[in-house]
């Protein structure tokens, strides 16, 4: 057979590797800032752009989409070429993929601190960035599928299946979750409302974990662990089962983020059952990764790359054991809304994604620069400070999670809440937050050491931009089915078929989960007293979303006695039907706000937003002085009402014209109420709108109670 000569594109791999390091540093630094803010609130700097509510989305987006995202591209662009024995399909597409992705990241880094957000966790980016992501993802898909099609190796190695499934599923998730109607360049409303929005969002959120943080990295594991250990994967059979079971099961598991919420019971149970089943493929994959080192464990002592990878795969095993446990309703009752969840995701992010990325970079950069790692000692230092950093991060937060949850739920012998003041449960865990800062800082120091080490390495070597390779062309006849050949290998040879099959598999789960909720009216019982927000409340809600209040406050009182005692009546699905987007939140750094309406006077909210510690001494909440200085922008109110009407919110016809007058009247009445309490403020300020919204929260149902009482 005649050998064809071709060249691997290492330049694109190098670029993505650099971007991975850069954004890793940025994302982790922002994360450290967020951790510090939770200990010393003055670090919010009293600036809108640097408050926790805007910094935390910046951190999560930077780490997930910038650090891990570039990590995925680094690994895929390196391994795909080698596994396909072909250069990437098109160099221009590779370049567009690289620069486009960096531009999107920069857009995110600018818009999120500016408060331009959709208010949906891990999908905060506004509509035009969503469109750019979609286009960019298609570019990546074409480039990948093109490479696979022009390959010189008939079999598609398992890593490539994971890449294909990643491409397909992320596309579906992103598009379905990002349906929104723009009001203007900076603002859009989710087309889904309340329970439906929550279900779609967590179907997305969970599967972003699955198909952005897990499947591509499993692909990288199946390539780079055998590479680093210089031996094939433990069981290829297991990897086939791992693949199909994982993508089949993962897509169903989303509702476990919404246990005990207003989501219908059947959907909650479905999520739990599939989450428990997920344990099998996840651990199958972990065992497959670890057993690849069978008989070669001595290499782990020598190889820094393998050290990182072993910890990564172990962290994957821990996180995927914990996940199903957390999806059990009785465990979730304790863990949900606490720092336990934060600890859990950081085992995944710092351990699995972080360490696998580091292992890959330490292996890959010396390779494409044809040199040795600058300092093995420094890499060893990185390994240990990183590992200890993970422990210092996670263990205090597990402790904090348990402590807070137990304190929330504790009753005295007389049947009263033992800690009725939420703040007591916050100050109690402050030392744990301090330890978390230490852990995060240690981890970051390790990464800085790595970046230094790799810069030195790169400087000592020369990039082999186009690496020469040879392989025979793939003969046409190899596509013909040989009698007696195994069916799955036929699938393996047909990438497009694999793509379509993966798509069908994940759509089945998504459809089964969501269609019934959209359809069956009885799933979301309507409550007649629940009315659309007034124009002022709507503006106030937009401020609530802009400031990222949902990062620390839930709007979901679960049906537990400990919660109804503390907050009031538990939340009903029908109360959220006009919430575009839903704001249930996932973490209670502060108390739940669903029943905050009319609990305190307007003046309390005013003073609390100006300086939280004046009303709640010891509070960790940032101050929001700009809400008092800034004039509320009402120029879009007409358009906002129109968009809401388009989404089915029953404002009367032509109400958009009347909205501004109603808004002004309501804000004047709030301002005059504040004046009675000796707070003199113009009625056109943002704080007035926010107070209007907060005072409305969860009160509609009280109206229905008083009506019933009167009857």
């Amino acid at each position, binding site marked *: 057979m005649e050998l064809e000569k071709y060249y691997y594109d290492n330049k694109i791999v190098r670029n993505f590797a650099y971007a991975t390091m850069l954004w890793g540093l940025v994302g982790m630094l922002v994360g450290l800032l967020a951790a510090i803010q939770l200990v010393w609130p003055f670090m919010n700097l009293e600036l809108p752009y640097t408050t926790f509510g805007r910094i935390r989305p910046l951190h999560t987006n930077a780490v997930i989409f910038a650090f891990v995202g570039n990590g995925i591209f680094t690994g895929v662009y390196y391994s795909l070429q080698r596994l396909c024995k072909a250069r990437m399909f098109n160099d221009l597409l590779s370049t567009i993929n690289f620069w486009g992705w960096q531009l999107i990241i920069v857009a995110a880094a600018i818009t999120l601190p500016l408060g331009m957000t959709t208010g949906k966790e891990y999908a905060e980016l506004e509509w035009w960035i969503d469109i750019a992501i979609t286009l960019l993802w298609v570019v990546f898909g074409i480039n990948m599928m093109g490479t696979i099609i022009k390959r010189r190796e008939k079999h598609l*190695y398992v890593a490539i299946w994971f890449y294909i499934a990643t491409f397909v599923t992320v596309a579906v998730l992103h598009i379905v979750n990002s349906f929104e109607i723009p009001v203007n360049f900076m603002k859009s409303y989710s087309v889904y409302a309340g329970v439906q929005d929550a279900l779609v969002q967590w179907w997305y959120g969970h599967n972003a974990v699955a198909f952005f943080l897990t499947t591509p990295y499993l692909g990288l594991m199946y390539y780079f662990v055998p590479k680093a250990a210089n031996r094939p994967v433990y069981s290829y059979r297991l990897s086939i089962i791992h693949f199909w079971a994982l993508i089949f099961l993962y897509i169903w598991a989303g509702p476990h983020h919404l246990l005990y919420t207003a989501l219908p019971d059947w959907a909650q149970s479905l999520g739990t059952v599939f989450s428990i089943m997920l344990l099998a493929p996840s651990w199958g994959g972990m065992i497959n990764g670890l057993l690849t080192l069978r008989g070669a464990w001595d290499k782990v002592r020598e190889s820094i790359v393998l050290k990182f990878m072993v910890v990564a795969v172990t962290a994957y095993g821990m996180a995927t054991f914990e996940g199903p446990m957390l999806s059990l309703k009785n465990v979730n009752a304790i863990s949900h809304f606490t720092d336990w969840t934060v600890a859990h995701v950081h085992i995944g992010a710092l351990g699995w994604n972080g360490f696998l990325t580091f292992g890959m970079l330490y292996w890959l950069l010396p390779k494409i620069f044809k040199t040795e790692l600058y300092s093995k000692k420094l890499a060893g230092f990185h390994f240990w400070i990183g590992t200890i950093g993970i422990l210092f991060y996670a263990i205090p937060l597990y402790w904090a999670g348990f402590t807070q949850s137990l304190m929330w739920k504790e009753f005295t012998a007389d049947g009263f809440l033992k800690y009725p003041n939420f703040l007591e449960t916050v100050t109690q865990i402050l030392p744990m937050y301090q330890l978390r800062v230490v852990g995060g800082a240690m981890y970051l120091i390790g990464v800085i050491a790595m970046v230094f080490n790799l810069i030195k390495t790169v400087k000592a070597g020369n990039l082999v931009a186009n690496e020469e390779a040879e392989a025979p062309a793939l003969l046409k006849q190899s596509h013909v089915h040989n009698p007696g050949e195994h069916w799955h290998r036929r699938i393996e040879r047909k990438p497009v078929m694999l793509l379509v099959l993966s798509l069908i598999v994940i759509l089945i789960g998504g459809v089964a989960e969501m*269609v019934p909720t959209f359809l069956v009216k009885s799933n979301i019982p309507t409550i007649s007293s629940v009315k659309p927000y007034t124009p002022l409340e709507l503006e106030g809600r937009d401020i609530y979303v802009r400031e990222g209040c949902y990062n620390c406050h839930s709007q979901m009182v679960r049906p537990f006695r400990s919660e109804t005692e503390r907050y009031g009546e538990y939340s009903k699905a029908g109360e959220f039907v006009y919430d575009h987007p839903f704001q249930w939140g996932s973490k209670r750094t502060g108390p739940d706000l669903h029943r905050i309406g009319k609990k305190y006077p307007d003046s309390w909210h005013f003073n609390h937003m100006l300086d939280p510690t004046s009303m709640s001494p010891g509070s960790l909440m940032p101050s929001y002085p700009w809400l008092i200085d800034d004039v509320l922008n009402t120029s879009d109110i007409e358009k906002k009402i129109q968009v809401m009407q388009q989404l089915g919110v029953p404002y009367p016809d032509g109400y958009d014209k009347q909205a501004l007058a109603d808004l002004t009247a309501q804000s004047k009445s709030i301002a005059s109420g504040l004046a009675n309490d000796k707070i003199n403020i113009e009625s056109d300020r943002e704080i007035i709108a926010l107070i209007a919204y907060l005072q409305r929260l969860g009160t509609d149902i009280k109206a229905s109670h008083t009506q019933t009482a009167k009857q």
Partner: protein
Amino acid sequence: MKFINYLESISGVSVFPMISLLVFFIFFILVGIKVYMMDSKSLNEIMNLPLQDDEINNPGNLKEN
């Protein structure tokens, strides 16, 4: 939301989740059975794919990293 109306017009749409569950179980069992019937010779060939480029292109480059 408008697309709900389209979905609602599908008769018997409530059976969809049941069908998908069945599809899942049947598919999964089939994968399980078939995987154990694969012949190990070609499996061996596939699982060595990641290690091939070193052997082909850089003989002698198999030293420990």
